[in-house]
């Protein structure tokens, strides 16, 4: 039978080092399979760990696409292919400055930012949903002040308003995305203060009206004594 042999090879690959199979979001619906195939797969995965691993591996390949893309000057985005490898043409671009980096979802941390800070002509940086980017990391971004125009920090769980305050070094910033930051205590007020801090920048965020309660609309023809001047 072909199925057990392939499952064994996949399991070996996981054990050998590709860590993607281990922390996969289990419990999500299987993407394909006929009715009969679904029950068979379900039945098998309840019984054999190998089959469960195989299911999760295919799930990974469909759902969790790690977008580590880079864009060079006037070129298109360079993405990894399905296997996570970059094309060999990459080496041609050694002297060309990098313009934009999309590191969303990437597990980059404080020491890892060393590599990004070497890119002196970086214009756009996306650190969306990076789980380890925190206030300390934001304080490291000041060397990019002369060139960075676009920064996205949406969805990073450890960034608070204290880290956002260090972005005042980035005076060339034109677009800043600070939406969906769970650790920021008061998103509306923070947005106002960040807008004051970076006057030339368009700040996308919670919206300053988020924390305000909506008052019931006054009837226009009813003269309320409160409004009498």
């Amino acid at each position: 039978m072909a199925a057990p042999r392939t499952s064994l090879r996949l399991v070996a690959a996981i054990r050998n080092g590709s860590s993607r199979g281990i922390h996969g979001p289990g419990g999500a619906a299987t993407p394909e399979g006929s009715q009969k195939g679904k029950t068979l797969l379900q039945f098998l995965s309840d019984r054999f760990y190998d089959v469960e691993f195989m299911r999760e591996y295919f799930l990974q390949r469909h759902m969790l696409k790690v977008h580590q893309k880079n864009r060079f000057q006037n070129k298109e985005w360079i993405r990894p292919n399905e296997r996570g490898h970059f094309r060999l043409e990459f080496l041609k671009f050694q002297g060309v400055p990098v313009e934009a980096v999309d590191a969303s979802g990437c597990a980059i941390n404080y020491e890892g930012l060393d590599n990004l800070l070497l890119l002196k002509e970086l214009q756009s940086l996306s650190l969306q949903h990076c789980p380890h980017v925190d206030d300390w990391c934001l304080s490291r971004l000041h060397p990019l002040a002369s060139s960075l125009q676009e920064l996205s920090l949406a969805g990073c769980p450890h960034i608070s308003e204290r880290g956002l305050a260090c972005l005042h070094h980035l005076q060339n910033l034109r677009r800043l995305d600070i939406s969906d930051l769970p650790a920021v205590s008061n998103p509306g007020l923070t947005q106002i203060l960040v807008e004051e801090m970076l006057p030339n920048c368009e700040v996308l965020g919670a919206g300053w009206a988020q924390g305000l309660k909506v008052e019931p609309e006054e009837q226009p023809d009813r003269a309320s004594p409160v409004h009498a001047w």
Partner: protein
Amino acid sequence: MLGRGLRLGLRRGLVTQGLSARREGSTLDWDGKVSEIKKKIQSILPGGAWNPLYDTSHLPPEHSDVVIVGGGVLGLSVAYWLKKLERRRGAIRVLVVERDHTYLQASTALSVGGIRQQFSLPENIQLSLFSANFLRNINEYLAVVDAPPLDLQFNPLGYLLLASEKGAATMESNVKVQRQEGAKVCLMSPEQLQNKFPWINTEGVALASYGMENEGWFDPWCLLQGLRRKVQSMGVLFCQGEVTRFISSSNHMKTASGREVTLKRIYEVHVKMDRSLEYQPVECAIVINAAGAWSGHVAELAGIGKGPPGTLQGTRLPVEPRKRYVYVWHCPQGPGLEAPLVTDMSGAYFRREGLGNNYLGGLSPTEEEEPDPGNLEVDYDFFQDKVWPSLAQRVPAFETLKVRSAWAGYYDYNTFDQNGVVGPHPLVANMYFATGFSGHGLQQAPGVGRAVAEMVLEGHFQTIDLSPFLFSRFYLGEKVQEHVII
């Protein structure tokens, strides 16, 4: 015979099993029973915790390898590093004696919580750099199983130090040393300063140094509780009590040149319990003086400074408590979110607190204006007369401010050169100091704790060489002075 004995034994075993009503597992849980019996015997024998006459659970143990006097951030840091660097787990028994577990007067809890690398001594810079590293990775250093991670609320906005014409050259040379050690500091001219922070009045400012990374402020209470929790999980014993006496043994010896010298070793510490006359003598091998503002008093108890003046025996530990005020005010048009901790040439400093346009700050008084350290009452006139004018001159928006509240705390002020004392005393051979930091103890605590632990365990400093901070400099008269006291 054997068969009958076996049968009797089995029956007795079944009877005891019935009495104890244990149904699951094996019938004879020998391992559990033997260890329980062993523990009971150990507690009854001398050296154990059991006392048949009265309850001693509130007293410290009768023996401890290291006794740390003072449970603030420095004392806990030394305890942490002692336990982390010991060669074998459980090799050293450490006891932390803290007079007040609510930390009402402790300098750590009342601190403004700043950390900076802008010092002039390379050792201070290295200590702060290591501390910044420690704080950044605090959840790896101080992780405790099943406890939530610590949130230090670190604000990485940096320190801005201003200098006049007179101090500009010193500031430049300081920044050079700081950059050599690896701190990220930049120098700014008055024009650049005005561009970056338009709310500053740059009159009188010739040069400014601004820390870009690893500088800022954080919550010292969180660090203290995190250290306490971790240190308790590592097996350090705590005791609420006051050290009232040291019993030491003396050894009269002659130096190579024939001079007589008396070396002392403390072998017992008397710890008095709170609000009672009861005390417990704790036999110890090493005593660490981390009592902060009261370290001078603790050193006197050990006989340090009792001798003819001008000799090594007569050199006291020159650490005394000095009261400092911190005021909190609200200013609606004040500096924005990007304001660093600004320090003026006059010594006045301020920083933002939270999102609501609240600021806190203060000023170190001159020697003549030193307030009485007997209590922690706040003098609001000091703010009106001395602090507010300096602040309003530097930041014009602060002319319209409203003081919300204030508090006072002690500096463990080193009257000799305002820098820390670290390491053993030359005569009282087993008392180690970790005190006297005069306002920058909190930010250097992780580094100093590690240095003292290395000194205790290895006999010399290994990672950061703090030999300029040894006690002997007070006798030799070698001052290691910083140029800015905040």
